[in-house]
């Protein structure tokens, strides 16, 4: 008569997720119970609809882009492992993690956090933010409130500021450079309770 949640989530699985994502045992079990409550189809995976059912996410101007980040290209289901891998980007960076072996970069490193933000803009996943992509994302955020013309000039200026090689788009390296003064570690983190 153990708990239902623990019989479905095996101890080995928890260990693997722990190693991969850095979440603690109790965080994993709590997030698993959240995962199962979102999983209305009760098939162990989440679909886009499962995410869209969260009202606060549905009213988020970038809600669809954020949901998209949970799904590997071409797939429309995400399992608990994948769910946790994406969430791991938003773990705060702890002191003992800073000087780790650079070969195995943790999911919640500054670079990975930035890459996640970069991909919110990079609609076609070609590792470049074109003017068109920037415009589309801007439009999602402002809705109908700002004219095409004004939005266009905002996009132009933003690309100009970031673009270094003159290809009229922003690469990931250029993206990092522009945001080098921003406190990414804190702003792209969520305070998970232990």
């Amino acid at each position, binding site marked *: 008569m153990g708990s239902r949640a623990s019989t479905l989530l095996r101890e080995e699985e928890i260990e693997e997720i722990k190693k991969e994502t850095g979440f603690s045992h109790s965080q994993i079990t709590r997030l698993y119970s959240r995962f199962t409550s979102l999983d209305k189809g009760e098939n162990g995976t989440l679909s886009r609809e499962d995410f869209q059912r969260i009202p606060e*996410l549905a009213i988020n101007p970038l809600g669809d882009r954020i949901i998209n980040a949970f799904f590997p290209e071409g797939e429309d289901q995400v399992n608990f492992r994948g769910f946790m891998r994406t969430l791991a980007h938003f773990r705060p960076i702890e002191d003992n993690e800073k000087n780790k072996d650079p070969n195995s970069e943790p999911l919640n490193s500054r670079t990975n956090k930035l890459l996640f*933000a970069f991909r919110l803009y990079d609609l076609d996943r070609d590792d470049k933010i074109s003017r068109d992509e920037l415009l589309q994302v801007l439009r999602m*955020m402002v809705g109908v409130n700002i004219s095409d013309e004004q939005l266009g000039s*905002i996009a132009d200026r933003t690309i100009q500021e970031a673009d270094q090689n003159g290809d009229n788009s922003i690469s990931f390296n250029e993206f990092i450079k522009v945001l080098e003064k921003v406190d990414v570690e804190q702003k792209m983190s969520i*305070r998970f309770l*232990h």
Partner: protein
Amino acid sequence: MEENWDVAFTFFKIWFSAMVGLIMLPAMFGVSLGITEVYMKVLVKTLEWATLRLQRGRGEQQILKQSLSSGIIQRGDGSMEQEIGDLRRSRPKPQVGGDFTLSDVFYFNRKGIESIVEDQVTQRFTSEELVSWNLLTRTNNNFHYISLRLTIMWGMGVVIRYCLLAPLRITLATIGLTWLVIGTSLVGLLPSSRAKDWLSELVHLMCYRICARGLSATIHYHNKENRPTKGGLCVANHTSPIDIVILANDGCYAMVGQVHGGLMGVIQRSMVRSCPHIWFERSEMKDRHLVTQRLKDHVADKTKLPILIFPEGTCINNTSVMMFKKGSFEIGGTIFPVAIKYDPQFGDAFWNSAKYNMVSYLLRMMTSWAIVCNVWYLPPMSQEEGEDAVQFANRVKSAIAHQGGLVDLSWDGGLKRAKVKGTYKEQQQKMYSNMVVGDDSSD
């Protein structure tokens, strides 16, 4: 063979007369023999002991339990202005054109991820989490290790709940409901008179008291001086259909609702014969004007029973109060707010209608330990000058939330089934646009 039947028959007779003598009759006249009190005392002691055992068994996991009740994450609570302003601090404001930085998405992103991990709305539609295990298997999701003594205790609990309490409760509820149908139908045959009203109230009260015993309900009423009076409108937060039984134990109400089929339909049809409840056909329900008019007529007649309305329109899990639909507040008349809060330790009263139908929900209730709840009658409220129905509804809602110790949410309970309206997203976009181009230059 004959003998066996005799034994069974005698046993049945004793069982039945004990039930009638010890439970039914006292229930009908609203007196208590103190059996429930003793049961509750034993129960509280047992659960306290179980909690102690659990804690001793895993002292090191104390922290987990504490954070369980407070959630998975600590959410940022800054406004959009503050947070984006913070993000933009690292770069100067441009001279011309709109103000935008690539890091603005961090704000939306964090809000989005936070809502995926933990949100205000969807978790209100699932059973609330307990701070300590109450020895029911169904709530055992977060409590893993259990000692031998606890297991024995749990086993005894199962036997008592399923073999003793459940049959007793089912019999009582059946008798209560049958009596309700027969009694109200009989009273309905009488001509309209004060005697009829009096009898009708008596029958209703008796049935609800028997039903309450059938759920082993221990109800604490507070501030009885504020009880709804005739011609008033009683407004309460909604956790389950049992709310009606709970409130009707302490006074009669005219119910408002949709006509159901099946068992509910039979009960509804007989109830309306003896006392003016307001049932609507499904098709009529859509006609808001008609609904309001019928309610107005009822309230205008000061001899009629107070109307009971659950303005949330859906069951919430006993942790919060969600948006009150403004319709009930457009009727006029005095509003009598009532806060109902169940004690989750003895059984989860929330009806998760997406998961359980009415009958299996009631069976779950009858195999729980007991229903313990507090009912607070709040001082009557009426609409103030210059206040529209929505503001008034919100004021009443806050009062109920505050009194019941519930979280006051502005989200619509209808989100349980429907999708969120696009206008809320537009509001967010508007707010952000103002940060990009400034309030005045958007035209």
